């Protein structure tokens, strides 16, 4: 059985932007990892950054500073 928990999901217009986000988060020691795009957001493939909901503002801010375009920020039980 897969246990669900509340997660922060950040989506991007391209996988290049998602990979850029991963690189920035790793270099700044921000928690999270890339996951396949959940079907609740879009069933059309792709990848998203998954982290803790309380990191939302921090992650949004660093993406903005680094010029990484974000498509959407969600909180989902997945």
């Amino acid at each position: 059985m897969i246990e669900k928990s509340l997660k922060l999901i950040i989506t991007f217009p391209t996988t290049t932007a998602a990979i850029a986000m991963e690189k920035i988060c790793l270099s700044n020691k921000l928690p999270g990892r890339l996951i396949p795009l959940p079907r609740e957001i879009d069933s059309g493939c792709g990848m998203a950054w998954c982290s803790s909901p309380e990191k939302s503002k921090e992650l949004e801010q660093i993406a903005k500073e680094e010029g990484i375009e974000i498509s959407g920020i969600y909180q989902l039980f997945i």
Partner: protein
Amino acid sequence: MIYLDNAATTLHKPDQVIEAVVEAMRSLGNSDRGLSSGSLKASRTLYEARLKISELLGCPRADHVIFSQNSTEALNTAINGTIFSKDHVITTDLEHNSVLRPLYRLKKEKEVELSFVPADSKGNLSLESFEELIKPNTKAIICNHASNLTGNIVDLSKISTIARRHGLIFIVDVSQTAGCIPINMEEIGADIICFTGHKGLMGPQGTGGMCVREGIDIKPLKVGGTGVKSYSNTQPVEYPTRLEAGTLNSHGIVGLSAAIDFIQSTGINIISQKETRLMNSFYKGVKDIKGIEIYGDFSLPKRVAIVALNIHDYDSAVVSDVLSDKYKIATRPGAHCAPRMHKALGTENRGAVRFSFSWFNSDEDVNRAVQAVKEIAS
């Protein structure tokens, strides 16, 4: 064999390029297709390659570095994606068929109008002519950074100033300069630069791409699988995905990425200086031999490491064959896919023998090539 055909492709690659490709072929999945470890590794390494190319070529955004098979595919994408029915294009006599043939086809099929800035007998362009040729329907200027026949480098900043003043898209073919001299697309003022990975960049064949300035709209040449937005009927609009339908040559791009590491650690200026020194040494060694005719302008402050010549009235194909067969020196004869350049130089009938030098050539290579030319001309 002494390899002096580096303007066609660099045969000798840094060892780390070969090692990187071998390792990639053992470990990479398909980039942007899921998040298994192999796929993610491919996505990450491609992103690193985009970062390195954006740094090397002065592209402000890594996600505006688009991969293709080679310059030809990049130029076809740039030309067919920005120039439409009844537009007017200004280009030059220096261009390779990778620019000329897409334009000729647009002329035939889409009534696109073409104007050519002529080259003089030294292979130089009259930069003032660009502005004189502008018409109300002019859409773009397309120009070679350096001729693959003469090695002359074009002063692009003057042309980009004209393009900016008139709101034209400025597309530059950097096939012969990328990896050989420092390039900064922002300083050049180019909207699109198209490069190949296997010449001066010393990467594998089957790699290349384009750098696109933010705000430039290119209609995709190919549409198809992207790994994202799979239920959409249309190609995603965001770069680089927009222009990268289908599986990329990740194995080759990893090799290109390793080649750029080699160039950066060696120093592009160091590479440029060595190649220029070899070219000048060869030029000085052959220029006064009786019966030698050399093409291009060797008084220019900057050139790429190419010397094209003919010997007496010999067919260039025969000379190149003798160089290969008797002296074990590889050169390129014939027309070099640059028909208008040959017309300007008056070498339409017999072509020219092109000697082109790379980082991996030596002074001994040059000395033996000079000696071979002397013996053939004697």
